């Protein structure tokens, strides 16, 4: 009996310590309500399957905030500093919703950004709308995010109908430039919100463009073996393969395609997993000649871009990606709006965001000319670039090839893919 009791007290002791820890944190965190700060809530996936993307977005935001604060913060607010609050969504919609509630009510954030996963952004923006807190979406591609009639939602990145439109425009241009005939297309995509969204648009565009779809294959992104899918691609004999993949499956798919020596004229990917910093390292030579559509590339011809990337790489060990640039520019767009609003009133910030016309500044490292939102909150100017993964003497890198105006000087894309 005595033993039972000591066990019991030992256990209760541990429990009390744990609970008091959480309580201490809980009180200490709400106490430090600084006066002259702008509070920005960020809901991104920091653990779970999309943790890699979340980490990149967080780093990009941190870099932008450091720069803005070092330059004196928001001047119209008396030099107010930006204070970031990060919340982990674990890629789960219900966690995103709960965190939005918390950030708005407890941390009293003035503005929200996030959430990368469209499935999280979608319901989370509804929370912000209810409270009238402006929600700036750096990147979440689902069309419907800005089509819910919400007044407080603004998106920097292009939406999925633009991504797919540009992929087909690129394909047409390649056919002309390299005089190749593309007839048969294969669509292979992760079976999620994102993949399904793209595939739906592809099918329509293929119909309009007179292409024949020889394979339309969703696959679970938790697949442990993609060789059956690769066999299907090989047997369908498409000219061009179009992909939507997360990181783990992008690597697996690329390696398996090379193993089975699948012959294709071109592979066109859709960012995401193919743009992940680990992708090039892990897929290596097998990734050569893949075309990948992204928002931004390190070789973009814009003053400041090279420096920003060099700084980021020195800090975190990998290049900026399109998605992290969206996060980076989002912080600058916010700072710009705050400067013009001169107030922390959410309605005023919203007005200022709606009137955004951000054309130059440290954050403006994207290829397009400005950030300007249309009535639905979508950035009108958002555009995409097609890159090709190739080795031109400095190891594998991503080289911008399309639109032609943005093509890296002196580079000719390799199309169709040479036989290895």
């Amino acid at each position, binding site marked *: 009996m005595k033993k039972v009791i000591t*066990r*019991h007290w*030992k*256990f*209760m002791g*541990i*429990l009390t310590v*744990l*609970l008091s820890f*959480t309580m201490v*944190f*809980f009180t200490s*965190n709400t106490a430090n309500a600084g006066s002259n700060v702008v509070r920005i809530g960020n809901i991104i996936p*920091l*653990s779970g399957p999309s*943790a890699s993307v*979340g*980490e990149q977005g*967080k780093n990009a935001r941190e870099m932008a905030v450091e720069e803005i604060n070092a330059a004196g913060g928001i001047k119209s607010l008396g030099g107010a500093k930006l204070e970031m*609050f*990060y*919340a*982990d969504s674990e890629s*789960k*919609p*219900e*966690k995103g*919703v*709960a*965190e939005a*509630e*918390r950030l708005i*009510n*407890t941390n009293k954030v003035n503005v929200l950004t996030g959430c990368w996963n469209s*499935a999280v952004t*979608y*319901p989370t923006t*509804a929370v912000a*709308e*209810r409270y009238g807190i402006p929600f700036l979406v750096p990147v979440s591609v689902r069309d419907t995010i800005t089509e*819910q009639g919400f007044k407080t939602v603004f998106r920097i990145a292009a939406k999925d109908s633009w991504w797919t439109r540009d992929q087909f425009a690129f394909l047409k241009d390649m056919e002309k430039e390299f005089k190749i005939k593309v007839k048969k297309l294969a669509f292979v995509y992760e*079976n*999620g*919100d994102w993949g*399904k*969204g793209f595939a739906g648009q592809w099918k329509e565009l293929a119909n309009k463009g007179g292409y024949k779809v020889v394979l339309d294959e969703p696959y*679970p992104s938790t697949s442990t073996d993609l060789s059956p899918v690769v066999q299907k691609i090989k047997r369908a004999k498409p000219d061009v393969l179009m992909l939507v993949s997360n990181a783990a499956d992008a690597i697996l798919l690329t390696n398996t395609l090379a193993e089975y020596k699948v012959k294709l004229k071109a592979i066109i990917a859709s960012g995401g997993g193919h743009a992940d910093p680990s992708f090039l390292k892990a897929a290596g030579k097998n990734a050569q000649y893949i075309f990948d559509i992204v928002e931004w590339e390190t070789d973009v011809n814009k003053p400041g871009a090279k420096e920003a990337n060099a700084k980021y790489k020195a800090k975190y060990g990998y290049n900026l990606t399109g998605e992290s640039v969206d996060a980076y520019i989002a912080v600058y767009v916010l700072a710009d709006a705050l400067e013009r609003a001169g107030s922390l009133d959410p309605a005023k910030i919203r007005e200022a965001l709606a009137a955004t016309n951000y054309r130059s500044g440290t954050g403006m490292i994207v290829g397009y000319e400005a950030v300007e939102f249309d009535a639905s909150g979508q950035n009108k100017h958002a555009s995409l670039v097609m890159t090709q993964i190739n080795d031109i003497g400095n190891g594998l890198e991503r080289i911008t090839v399309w639109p032609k105006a943005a093509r890296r000087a002196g580079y000719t894309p390799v199309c169709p893919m040479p036989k290895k």
Partner: protein
Amino acid sequence: MTHQNIKKFSLALVGIIAFVLPLVLRSPTYLHILVLLYFYAYLTTSWNLVGGFAGVLPLGHAAFVGIGAYTSTILFLQYGISPWIGMIVGSILATIVGVLIGLPTLKMRGAYFALATIAFSEGVRVMIENIDFLGPFKLNGPRGLLIPPLNTGLANFLFVGKEPYYYIILIMLIMALAFTYFISRSKLGYYLNAGGEEPEAAMALGVNVARAKLIAMAMSCFLTALAGTFYAQFTLYIHPRSIISLDLSFEIAFIALIGGRGSIAGPVLGALLLRPVSDFSRIYFGATLPGLHLVIFGVVLVLVMIYQPRGLQEPLTRAFNKLLDRFAVKTTMEDKK
């Protein structure tokens, strides 16, 4: 005062505190956390009917949450039927599915039953992810269904503030607790208890263990699916990967085991410990040290199981009774019974 009276009194006190809490606690954040806490306590109470009393370990209850949520949401979005009605329809559907699954699986022993329920719920998730349209019903595959937050009001089960949700789930929880209390005192409860501990002996005594388990399963599925509708109306978005997830199924089972499986207070105690641990550790470490909150969650699970393998309910009841002994002087022999 006697023991019985003090117990009744403290129970009433807890009830009153729960009801007036929203008047004191104005922060929607904490109300949100509390709503989810009650939601999990409710789910675990429903789970407990089959997982606790019937002595098997179902690890796929998220499927029934999903069935409830999808049914009421589809009826609401496509046909304008009030979620209150959809809630009942979904629950009936879930009960039918639960019985169909329970018929063959409830005969299985421990691990097999647990794995069968996992496979079943994963199967349901895969089906929903692969189906955009099921006949006239739009499931929308992996993209999920969004409930637009318009036309709020009681009839539509949509509210602007958190308080209505708080009271709805609180009343649901109290009703579920009362229901389990009633069941545990009924003949069915005794049959289940006997069947869970010594199935052979119970069968020898003429108890139809299989039937009792099946009834428990049916009731459990019915109650679980009701919570599915609540979840859909509360988060306003359902998505197969998050609602029919193993994480949810597992968390329900954990709360029950941590709290004390098969006891009435267990699910509430378990939720009171695990939910704050999971919420607050995510809030404070989620951003700076990604993943740490799940490490803490795991550590708490392991520690409780090592030190209190029967759950928290036993030691807490002991501690409570000890307190009573100290304060209630006029204890008579009768009360001790």
